[in-house]
């Protein structure tokens, strides 16, 4: 099912290209929007939300035109900005309930939902304290809470792990994982931290300098080709490589695994080699690239454009 569709979407800032002629169709699910700083990720999200007017082109989300139906659409979209944007003088629960009411929820429902989502993001007693007293991690949680308080089918999250320490980052990714498991909910996650999206997102959109570099399912985009296989073993890796060589299979060891070209006579020879080397094959599958490897291949050294 289609989540986002843009046609020649372009945004210029005083002659600087923010987004250039972007034509893309993105399905529902958990989507990663990746690119270096200045790739146009935030611009893309703001255009989708109607916070910016496109210089040209059109964008549809959830099947509706962003420029024509912006207000109605924003009832069904949550947004977590990259930068700090909370009202310091309000309490966590007061702020989230306020945002819920601005999204149209009645007062009693708004407060109920605010408590629910703050509980979900891990703010318990702290929710009654003023936001000015919160740590960076707590602020990120409140930002996430306000984005989902009205239970939107689509949440646009701009750099949700920015500024978090490793523990906070891991917890935030856990929350996003839980959110992505919600039926009928889609997430668009903008980030330049590539490890964040591996294992979380099932669709990848790569931008650089305001231009689209790739848009495809994560599995598809990360698979190298169908010929190369990856094997992970428990045992003596050099001995396993030698056993493979004796059977005419050229292995390319890399850290804790070996990569081979798929044997023409089938995979049986691999298990025979493992038996000879007294190893256990723990994983055998087609080779994939990490997003980082993909990114380094796709993105030239000198990025440009707007944020």
């Amino acid at each position, binding site marked *: 099912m289609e989540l986002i569709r843009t046609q020649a979407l372009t945004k210029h800032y005083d002659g600087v290209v923010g987004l250039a002629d972007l034509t893309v169709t993105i399905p529902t699910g958990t989507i990663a929007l990746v690119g270096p700083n200045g790739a146009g990720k935030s611009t893309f999200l703001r255009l989708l*939300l109607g*916070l*910016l007017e496109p210089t040209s082109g059109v964008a549809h989300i959830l099947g509706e035109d962003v420029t024509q139906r912006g*207000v*109605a*659409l*924003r*009832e069904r979209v949550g*947004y977590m*900005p*990259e*930068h*700090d*944007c*909370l*009202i*310091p*003088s309000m309490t966590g629960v007061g702020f989230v309930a*306020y*945002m819920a*009411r*601005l*999204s*149209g*929820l*009645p007062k*009693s*429902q708004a*407060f*109920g*939902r605010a*408590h*629910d*989502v703050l*509980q*979900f993001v891990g703010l318990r007693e702290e929710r009654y304290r003023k936001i000015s007293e919160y740590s960076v991690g707590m602020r990120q949680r409140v930002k996430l809470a*306000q984005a989902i308080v*009205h*239970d939107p*089918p689509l949440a646009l999250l701009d750099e949700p792990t920015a500024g978090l320490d490793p523990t906070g980052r891991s917890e935030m990714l856990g929350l996003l994982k*839980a959110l992505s*498991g*919600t*039926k*009928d*909910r889609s997430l668009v996650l903008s980030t330049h931290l590539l490890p964040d999206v591996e294992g979380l997102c099932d669709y990848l959109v790569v931008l650089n300098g305001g231009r689209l570099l790739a848009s495809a399912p994560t599995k598809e985009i990360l698979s190298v080709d169908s010929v190369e296989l990856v094997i992970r073993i428990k045992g003596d890796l050099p001995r396993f490589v030698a056993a493979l060589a004796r059977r005419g299979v050229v292995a390319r060891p890399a850290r804790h695994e070996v990569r081979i070209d798929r044997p023409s006579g089938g995979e049986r020879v691999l298990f025979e080699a493992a038996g000879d080397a007294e190893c256990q094959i723990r994983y055998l599958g087609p080779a994939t690239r990490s997003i980082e490897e993909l990114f380094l291949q796709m993105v030239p050294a000198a990025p440009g454009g707007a*944020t």
Partner: protein
Amino acid sequence: MTISAPRYTISRLDREPRWKRVRVIVFEGLMRRLAALNIVLIVLGALIVGVEVVLFTTPAFVALMSFGGPVGLSDFAVPFESTPYLLLATLLTASAGASSIAGDVADRSITLYLSRPITTGDYLVGKGSAVGLVLAIFFLIPGFAACLFAYIVGNVTVGLAVTAIGAFVVSGLLLVLFFTTLALFLSSLTRRPIFAGAAIFGVLVSAEVLAQLVRGVTSSAQALYLSPIEDLLAVAQSLFGVTPSIGAGSAAGVVLGISVVGSVVTYLRVRQVEVVG
């Protein structure tokens, strides 16, 4: 209030109409201003109320002291001819209105406002109404109370009291409209509320000083049109039956014109606000 467990399915939530969302902005803005321990606001409010009580009750004292002597509508115009009153009005506007938009730009919460299902116009109406209500509390209620007080203790007829209340309401609303528009406009130009406050005060006082200087040089009362305070004064004087120095209709036109242009420019300005990290 009960706290339910988090749900992991999209729920069907009720939605209120847009005007109720605007009302939420108004209420929150009003409460934030009234609840904030802004010592300047409190002191100014107390000063204004004090000055108003003394000035507005003048007709009542006139009535009492003259043993039934006549009290006219013009007796109620005293506060609008008072320089301290208008100066305090300017200071209160600067204090209450400076942070309306500048504060949201400073803490970047404007991004979240505009990402909710409201329009830029809704946002401005909400913010403006909050400021306007704060000003109205100080400018309309005491006038209304003073007229009532004069009626109760003096020999002011019902008709005169009602006419005076009407004049207070019209001139007060015009004052609130103009000052609110000016506050929003200047607040939208900066992300520092203190600069916006200084600009509100500076613009009004500078215009007044300029108008008086030009009037002194040219000996023409027409120069007073340059000052919004003089324009507001002329309208109020006219409503209270005092002959103003300049045409009340033209003065009202100037004030309304500035308000309309200011509102449009503020709208366009907020549409252009781009909050970046």
